[in-house]
């Protein structure tokens, strides 16, 4: 779809929702991700200009357990209503809109690039604040009733490991390190705790950041019901540190800051051994997602250079798994 075609379709959509005077301007492609394409546009009407985005599904390709755009928007909206800093959802697309699944949300200014957030001088102050902000935001998310959006996936940790193992083995690419990690995960399952709403992809790269820290949390596609420690482990994975290995929280902060604020706001303890389990699980999951994206290319579903290239990042996750399991990783 080109910007002109999208502008035409969007104009009808916003007129149905916001009145016949509504206009659409400045349509620009923001990114074409693995399972979504995002466009920025301005809603013009009533003497004001409102910056918005529309996120559309990119075909039917979704990683195992990922939500469709309608469910994703519903979770994001519930989170926004509960005060979580995330873009307000202005509308969920329906079949008459003719664009497939998708939603319209507030457009928030700021930086999302991981490398810049963990490294650029202008974000030094933001980095000081972000680990504590993460602790607070995660406690807020985990306080949302897990039944707030019906039909979210909910699996016990052992079943999550099984599902990931099946996904990996389906590619018939033998990786002994992955099978060792699967064994380790089965041998080190966390203590059961009451299930909560888990964001599922809470990490550097999915935060909009300005000079004061996190303005907004994006990408609720992997939201599900599960162990709250999963979000803390995922946030601390090496893959999201963008080279800042000695800043385990997202490449910007220290674990003590994250855990202290999380415990204070949520009233629940941060459990380091469960968090380590979820770091190993998350690293394996990221490795399997890289395989999934690569095999979309190899099977001919998506012909893109980016998709072909990501297969050679699987070895990074093998290394991270080895050092995590051996206990030599920077923690």
């Amino acid at each position, binding site marked *: 779809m080109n910007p002109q075609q999208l502008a035409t379709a969007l104009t009808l959509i916003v007129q149905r929702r916001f009145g016949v005077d509504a206009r659409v301007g400045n349509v620009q492609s923001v990114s074409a991700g693995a399972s979504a394409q995002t466009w920025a546009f301005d809603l013009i009407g009533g003497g004001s200009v409102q910056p918005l985005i529309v996120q559309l599904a990119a075909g039917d390709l979704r990683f195992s357990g990922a939500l469709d755009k309608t469910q994703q928007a519903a979770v994001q909206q519930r989170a926004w209503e509960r005060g979580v800093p995330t873009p307000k959802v202005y509308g969920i697309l329906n079949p008459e809109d003719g664009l497939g699944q998708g939603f319209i949300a507030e457009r928030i200014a700021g930086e999302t690039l991981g490398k810049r957030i963990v490294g650029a001088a202008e974000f030094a102050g933001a980095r000081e604040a972000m680990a504590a902000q993460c602790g607070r935001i995660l406690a807020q998310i985990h306080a949302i009733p897990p039944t707030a959006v019906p039909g979210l996936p909910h699996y016990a940790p052992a079943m999550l490991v099984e599902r990931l193992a099946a996904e990996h083995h389906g590619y018939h690419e033998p990786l002994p390190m992955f099978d060792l990690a699967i064994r380790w995960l089965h041998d080190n399952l966390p203590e059961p705790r009451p299930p909560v709403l888990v964001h599922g992809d809470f990490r550097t790269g999915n935060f909009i950041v300005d000079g004061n820290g996190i303005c907004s949390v994006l990408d609720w596609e992997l939201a599900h019901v599960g162990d709250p420690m999963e979000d803390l482990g995922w946030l601390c994975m090496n893959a999201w540190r963008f080279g800042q290995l000695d800043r385990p929280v997202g490449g910007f902060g220290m674990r003590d800051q994250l855990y202290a604020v999380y415990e204070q706001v949520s009233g629940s303890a941060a459990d380091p051994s469960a968090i380590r389990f979820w770091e190993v699980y998350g690293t394996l999951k990221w490795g399997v997602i890289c395989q999934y994206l690569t095999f979309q290319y190899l099977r001919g579903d998506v012909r893109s250079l980016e998709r072909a290239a990501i297969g050679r990042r699987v*070895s*990074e996750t093998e290394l991270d798994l080895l050092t995590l399991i051996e206990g030599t990783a920077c923690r």
Partner: protein
Amino acid sequence: MSLNRPTAGELLQALAEHLEKVVQPRLSGTDAYQNRIALNLLRILEREAALGPQLINEEQARLIDLLGSGGGPTTLNERLCTQISNGTFAATDARLLDHLRRTIYAKMAIDNPQYAAYRVALAQTRAGNN
């Protein structure tokens, strides 16, 4: 038969230089991003042409030694995966972990030698060996 110069590695180097010095400066936005991916892939192929055959042979020799049976790299790796899954190898087996470390370091030397965790792990291993 011996192919004429340039070698595959030398041709890859020429292609990478072309993309970096001639093409990259003319591009912006998504095209510039895509070209950097292409360039990175050529750098991977260059390293693979230089290091790949020896590293793959070494991996195969270690697998034969570890498993006590022969076969090609894929068959051997499949056998090792099965023996890890069924518990023939303990997750703490020192010979297994040593093999995995050498194999993963070899992949990193080709795929992404600048990966920060690889630099740290390599320095730790070298310090441990001294």
